[in-house]
């Protein structure tokens, strides 16, 4: 293998790895705060990508309607659970959050979509449409199960994944889409040409990670989230609303998922069900990283991305086998290092 190919594969791997890293981070975050293994993350990737692609084509993305429906459902669910105690200000906040945002997204999309307002506005609009779905889903599907076991939450996540996957087919159709990138230019580095989009992906990933680091380290909400992750009961006792923490965690996950989709759709054709396998690789990275450590998960994600790109060059048919089997030596090492585990539900 000559060095040029090595460099190209490495570059490919780093770009993919950056996406997996983002997903891994969001999965670790959601799991730590809510104990939900967020299987529908793949759908958020696909929704983000396809919403952005529809906007890029000057069409009205169907996901806007789903956003409105989910917002209404979340509103209904919250009204029901909080029916005994809902002061007017909280009610106003609830209505603004669950009905106002979808309405604003709907109106904006209607106005802007036919104009094709450029990649940046389209990307922001796609984020506005897809991100709020995550906290709405949390309210509708997971919050009523807050006391359930990890297993039940996991199965509920599978249910959400199935429903969103089916919905993706209805909203976006079976055809795949691609869209314009953030940059058409490229950077020449000797024999290697780095596409602008790849730089965007790596740059945004780094920026987002720094942002998350700042959020967790320096803001009250971030600290509250960390506290919830460490000890749910303890956090409640000192007045941190676990429901609110869950909502923030889901919002961040939705944002990260949608952004990942927007970033990859210029590089590869995305179908309504493409997200699942991408999300699974994020999972693999999260497990390798230990489902608890953010830097560990991010590093593991880079490794998964690089491994994937090299194995697709050497043995493309066994690409997935290699990537998913790579987890096993890591698990083995972890299990030999750690002691016997005791499951306490």
């Amino acid at each position, binding site marked *: 293998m000559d060095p040029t190919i090595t460099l190209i594969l490495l570059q490919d791997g780093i770009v993919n790895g950056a996406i997996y890293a983002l997903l891994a981070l969001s999965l670790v975050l959601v799991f730590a705060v809510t104990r939900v293994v967020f299987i529908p993350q793949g759908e958020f990737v696909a929704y983000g990508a396809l919403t952005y692609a529809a906007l890029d084509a000057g069409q009205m993305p169907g996901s806007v309607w789903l956003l409105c429906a989910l917002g209404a459902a979340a509103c209904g669910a919250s009204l029901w659970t909080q029916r005994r105690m809902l002061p007017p200000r909280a009610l106003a906040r609830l209505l603004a959050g669950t009905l106002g945002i979808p309405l604003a997204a709907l109106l904006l999309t209607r106005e802007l979509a036919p104009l094709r307002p450029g990649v940046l506005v389209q990307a922001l609009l796609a984020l506005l449409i897809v991100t709020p779905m995550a906290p709405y889903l949390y309210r509708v599907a997971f919050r009523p199960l807050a006391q359930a076991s990890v297993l039940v939450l996991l199965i509920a996540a599978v249910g959400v994944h199935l429903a969103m996957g089916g919905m993706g087919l*209805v909203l976006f159709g079976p055809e795949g889409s691609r869209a314009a990138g953030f940059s058409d230019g490229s950077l020449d580095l000797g024999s290697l040409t780095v596409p602008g989009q790849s730089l965007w992906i790596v740059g945004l990933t780094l920026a987002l990670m720094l942002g998350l680091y700042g959020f967790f380290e320096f803001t009250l909400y971030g600290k509250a989230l960390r506290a919830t992750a460490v000890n749910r009961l303890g956090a409640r006792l000192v007045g941190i609303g676990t429901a609110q923490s869950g909502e923030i965690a889901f919002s961040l996950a939705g944002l990260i998922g949608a952004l990942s989709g927007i970033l990859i759709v210029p590089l590869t054709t995305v179908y309504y069900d493409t997200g699942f396998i991408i999300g699974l690789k994020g999972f693999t990275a999260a497990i390798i990283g230990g489902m608890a450590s953010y830097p560990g998960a991010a590093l593991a994600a880079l490794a998964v991305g690089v491994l994937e790109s090299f194995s697709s060059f050497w043995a493309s048919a066994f690409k997935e086998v290699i990537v998913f089997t790579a987890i096993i030596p890591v698990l083995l090492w972890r299990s030999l290092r750690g002691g016997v585990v005791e499951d306490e539900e």
Partner: protein
Amino acid sequence: MMRRTLWPLPALLLCIGLPWLPWLPPFWVTLGNYIGISTIVAIGLVVLTGMGGITSFGQASFLGFGAYTTAILTVQAGLSPWLTLPLALAVSAVAALAIGAITLRLSGHYLAVGTIAWSVSLYYTFANLDLFGRNDGISAIPPLSLGGLQLIDGRLYFSVIWIGVVLAALATANLLDSRAGRAIRSLRGGARAAASFGVDTPRARTLAFVHAAMLAAFAGWLYAHMQRSVNPTPFGLNAGIEYLLMAVLGGAAHLPGALLGAGLVTIVNDVLQDLLPKIIGTQGNFETIVFGVILVLALQTWPEGIWPHIARVRPRPHLVRPDAPELPARSLPPRGEPVLSVRGLHRRFGGLVAVNDLSFTLFAGEIVGLIGPNGAGKTTTFNLLTGVDRPSAGEIEFLGRPLVGLTPPAIARLGIARSFQHVKLVPSMSVIENVVIGAHLRGHAGALRGVLRLDRAEEAQLYAEAARQLAHVGLAAFADRPATSLALGQQRVVEIARALCLDPVLLLLDEPAAGLRHTEKAELAALLRRLRGEGVTIMLVEHDMEFVMNLTDRLVVMDFGTRLAEGPPAAVRRDPAVIEAYLGSVA
């Protein structure tokens, strides 16, 4: 007992007769065949997930091992399908042992997501190797035949599948009712307790995993000879997810839940696929949307699954045979001989020294109290003595043998039994089932003997012993109640009965009197004196000073991890250092 042993008969008749009812549409028979195959897989998941607490998304892969083994051996090697059944089971069991050896030591959610990973990688292996026919799979698999009769008709095959379901259910029910099955059931809620009574918990996890994998392979074998062709799709991750949700929806902790979940999911899926295009008109994946929504709503309504809401689930009463021969008992060391000696014991957690240079000796047939203020290191000391935790330094010697480095089961085998500060009983088991776990090391039957019901004589002995110890502690009347329905104080006493089932030389009791009423405390004290009279050595941690002072022969007082005082209760009570530790200075 009657009900249990007789249900397979009418079930068998139903398996053979049902599909021939004249008004039954053939389509229902087909549906029934799919339900049967799924039920077998879901039964495995009840053992694995519901009882063992191990979530697996990968059961469809084991279905694949079964199906591909028979497909390859019948099509390419020309073997008879009946001959490939044991081979399919063996291949799957070996695969499960290999996968289990790598992944089973991971904790719950790691393991669950780990199963996703190997399931995906096995799927792509099936789909990319020539041996498995790549994506096209293997076709022209011969049908099963019985004395010249080819079982191609769906109605004939219905009988095969459902006899298979009955056999799988019987084998699993037998397993769960055996010594090995108790070890699996003890994994949820009481794994640490089970280990301290000699249950090899990693082995129990492996057994559950292999059992579930073999059932899935059996289902795969049935599937291959029903479809007469195999391809990778039904063995992928999505299928694995579907089996898991069948088990969880039906009620993962209950065998009938497997049938219920498999039936519901298969029928609802089918109805939706049939109905929705008629209502909505367009072809789409509407059924998955509706299915997903129903699933979430069902879990929100019945997080424990549906079965416990249909049937009132209670532990089955256990028929105890008092005439069963008593288990051999070990001979206790003569009174006054040193039993346990601890020298220079240390345990540091980072900067915190929980146990600091602790030394004491226990002599056979005495009751010693280990007391001290909260956080003095008493429970940590118990954990060090029983192998749950390893000392940072120091020696522990029991009957002349060093204990440091031994696992909890190995220490239990030497004759040290304990109870726990936070009660560790298995919630889904009855009182006597929990107690009989204590006698685990006094039985020998393995899983196979359990499945084949060859362990009855030994089981009768174990249960008779458990009943005897329950009577010993005065809880015989509660034997068949669910363990967690008792008052907390009584649950502590159940733990003592369980400890006595080990036939212990040394009994370590962590706050046995907490939560007991006055008369119950008096009964407990009488029981402990009686045990002392029989030659058992007892060490107890307790905060009730009246109880401790009246009962014990000697006290060891701890404070901040160190030994503050030691001696007879009357002397310790006057010790100024002890008074200061308990009441503060200038009291």
